[in-house]
């Protein structure tokens, strides 16, 4: 997975369809404060940014819309720096990623894991079980369910480590904790995740 950009950005996608303005043309019009071009900007990219932010902010659905708005306003502030080296969509998703990571950093600094959950033993979830769930197309839904019911510290650290593919070191540096502390937090998060996964799977 690419560490530099959200995985949603990895497929280079240019806006070259027939009558559609190119990214550069659109940016030039937005910078000249054309209200219709600005509307086109929102129409073209709001779904992409929203989908990305929503998946990364599990379980804080209540914050999604505010964060999407922050992304678009930040984009406007630095739109004059857009050079067209990547597509406008990828550029926007890069901003979204920074905003999401700001959120993770803030939450991990604020939240402490519940002590009483630290020593829980979990039921094993084997890769075989997972492969079965993947084959049945249940894994995505189940994962979102589990992430949404986990204590927020755990869902944040799992999303940051695995969904954003950040190293322990990166997370430690950004949160002002030691790598060991992040390792311990991740271990508890994985344990909790697997326990809840098993419970959710059994209840279906």
């Amino acid at each position, binding site marked *: *997975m690419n560490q530099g950009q959200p*995985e*949603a950005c990895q497929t280079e996608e240019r806006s070259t369809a027939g009558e559609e303005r190119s990214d550069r043309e659109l940016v030039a*019009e937005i910078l*000249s*404060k*054309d*209200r*219709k*071009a*600005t*509307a*086109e*900007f*929102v*129409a073209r990219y*709001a*779904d992409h*940014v*929203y*989908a990305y932010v*929503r*998946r990364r902010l599990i379980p804080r659905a209540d914050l999604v*819309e505010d964060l*999407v*708005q922050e992304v*678009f*306003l930040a984009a*406007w*502030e630095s739109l004059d720096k857009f050079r067209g080296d990547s597509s406008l969509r990828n550029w926007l998703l890069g901003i979204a990623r920074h905003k999401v990571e700001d959120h993770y950093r803030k939450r991990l600094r604020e939240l402490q894991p519940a002590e009483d959950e630290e020593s829980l033993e979990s039921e094993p*979830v*084997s*890769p075989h079980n*997972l*492969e079965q769930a*993947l084959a049945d197309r249940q*894994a*995505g839904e189940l*994962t*979102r369910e589990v992430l949404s019911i986990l204590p927020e510290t755990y869902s944040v650290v*799992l999303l940051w*480590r*695995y*969904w954003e*593919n950040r190293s322990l070191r990166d997370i430690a540096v950004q949160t002002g904790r030691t790598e*060991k502390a992040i*390792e*311990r937090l*991740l*271990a508890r998060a*994985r344990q909790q995740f*697997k326990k809840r996964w098993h419970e959710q799977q059994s209840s279906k």
Partner: protein
Amino acid sequence: MSNNLPSESDHRLFELLARETADAGAERAPSPLKARLLTALIRKQQESGRLRTLAETRGAGHPLCIFEDLWERVAQAEAAQSFNCCSLCHARVLAQHLERPRIYWGHCPYVAFAKK
């Protein structure tokens, strides 16, 4: 090696889960959110100077809605031509609060968000 380090199967498990759910489904942003984004962006644009006039906008190939068209004919001063007339329009208000507002004006961006 620390007990906290994940086993190979743990790594595989979480990598697979991340891959499975990373791009799951195309989620549409709610149309009221898009409407609020547009309003916020235009407000931000106005903070650093005037918007493009309606004539310039039309000249750039963007059709105007009926209200903008009327505004362009009636309001002659340049400041009025650059004014964000959507701020006075009921379509914007409805679109910011309803997923499917009952507005049928052609070329209104707020209507387009709900239709798409």
